[in-house]
């Protein structure tokens, strides 16, 4: 159900979701605005991430395996040194553009740091808490409500799809060729209709329990100020590193 959540007992896990979301967002902004030439700054950010991962008791292997999701984007960056313009350097007989090399580094470093920070957030916060956190950060309720429904009904939907597939296979359907895709496509349509009808029934059931267009809010308490201070350590430290690197350079 929650492939990105890693249930552990740690101080990071215990923090309220909204402070973690804010910290990761601010950290990512600092990383993104850092000039690409500040190599020491990026080294510092990596150290910060490693520190938080240690505190959260998230193993490096677990993080790195899931970080491979960025590979398709990084592959694009590999092309840049060959296609870039301007000053060029020779390396192992290849003529590479300096500007392109920096461009590739820029994508790789910032992308990886962003992905690692997001993974840490996901590893330490359940889906339900993430939505609660977004809600408390005043994310529009339409969006948080849609996410809440998705969280509840995705399994029901997958079950529906699985049963329909088994029923198709039971009647001798053996999809091996492209022209057999029609039954699958019709199945997707049927699934859509079923979901639509379920939506209507869920809405009726909600009305019957006094729903009047607004979700009752106020489940749980807000994060105490101390948690905001603790979690701000990450973006503040990152900003400090960025400034220090800029001054030294």
């Amino acid at each position, binding site marked *: 159900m929650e492939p990105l959540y890693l249930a552990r007992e740690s101080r990071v896990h215990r923090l309220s979701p909204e402070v973690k979301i804010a910290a990761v967002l601010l950290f990512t902004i600092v990383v993104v605005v850092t000039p690409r030439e500040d190599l020491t700054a990026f080294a510092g950010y990596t150290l910060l991430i490693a520190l938080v991962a240690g505190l959260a008791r998230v193993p490096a292997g677990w993080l790195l395996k899931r970080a491979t999701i960025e590979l398709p984007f990084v592959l694009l960056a590999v092309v840049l040194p060959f296609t870039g313009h301007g000053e060029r350097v020779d390396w192992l007989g290849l003529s590479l553009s300096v500007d392109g090399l920096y461009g590739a580094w820029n994508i790789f470093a910032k992308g990886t740091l962003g992905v690692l920070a997001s993974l840490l957030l996901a590893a330490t916060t359940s889906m339900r808490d993430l939505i609660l956190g977004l809600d408390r950060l005043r994310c529009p309720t339409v969006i948080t409500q849609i996410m809440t429904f998705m969280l509840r009904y995705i399994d*029901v939907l997958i079950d529906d799809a699985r049963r329909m597939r088994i029923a198709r296979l039971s009647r001798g359907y053996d999809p091996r060729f492209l022209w057999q895709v029609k039954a699958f496509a019709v199945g997707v349509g049927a699934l859509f209709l079923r979901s639509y009808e379920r939506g209507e029934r869920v809405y009726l059931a909600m009305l019957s329990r006094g729903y009047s267009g607004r979700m009752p809010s106020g489940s749980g308490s807000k994060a105490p100020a101390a948690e905001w201070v603790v979690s701000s350590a990450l973006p503040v430290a990152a900003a400090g590193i960025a400034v220090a690197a800029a001054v030294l350079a």
Partner: protein
Amino acid sequence: MTAALKITGLTFAYPDGREALHGVDLTLAPGERVALLGPNGAGKTTLVLHLNGILHGGAGRVEISGLPVTPGDRKAITEIRRRVGVVFQDPDDQLFMPTVAEDVAFGPANLGVRGDELDHRVTEALTAVGMLEHRDQIPHHLSFGQRRRVAVATVLAMRPEILVLDEPSSNLDPASRRELAEIIMSLPVTVLMVTHDLPYALELCPRSVILDAGRIVADAPTGELLADGDRMAAHRLELPFGFDPSAIHRR
């Protein structure tokens, strides 16, 4: 004494012209448990959706403990929806929140209940259906019978005066079916139970009514009604094979 539920001359036609109710009259005394029987398409669900003002627009009148159902009046309709707890057939339609406790809290929260009182309501309702230890679970991870019981709790948390159950025994295994019966009988509320499960009606409800083609066509003690073979057959009602209602001693 004011009737728990009083329906007089209720008619309803769907926007596509299909007429569903043709003048329904039905009165339930407080604390009564009544089974609403009838073939598919008789208008049972349509009738249920009139009890809390979700469907309206035809002639007639519905009163819940003396309070008329007036769909235009938002405040009154909220009170009506508190008094009438509808448990729908598919618990997956009823349970839409990510955890059991949040779902049970949804109804009372809509009524403005907050904080400790809300917690108390959730605990009370889940205890009544024996599901307290599952309060933080995801509904999808519960068995079908457990989900049906939680669906009952979501309505109990609103402290209703009438519990309306749509096919409460459908898709339940015999043990879950019996557990639910025990829960329903332990509740101090008026019950209107829509069902095709005639032995269940006989077990739970001393009185039954038959709705057919949008009208109440029979209203009698359940045992008597089930024993009247001709009347049953006239309304497409059939007892399970080998079931003899006269052989059962009333509890």
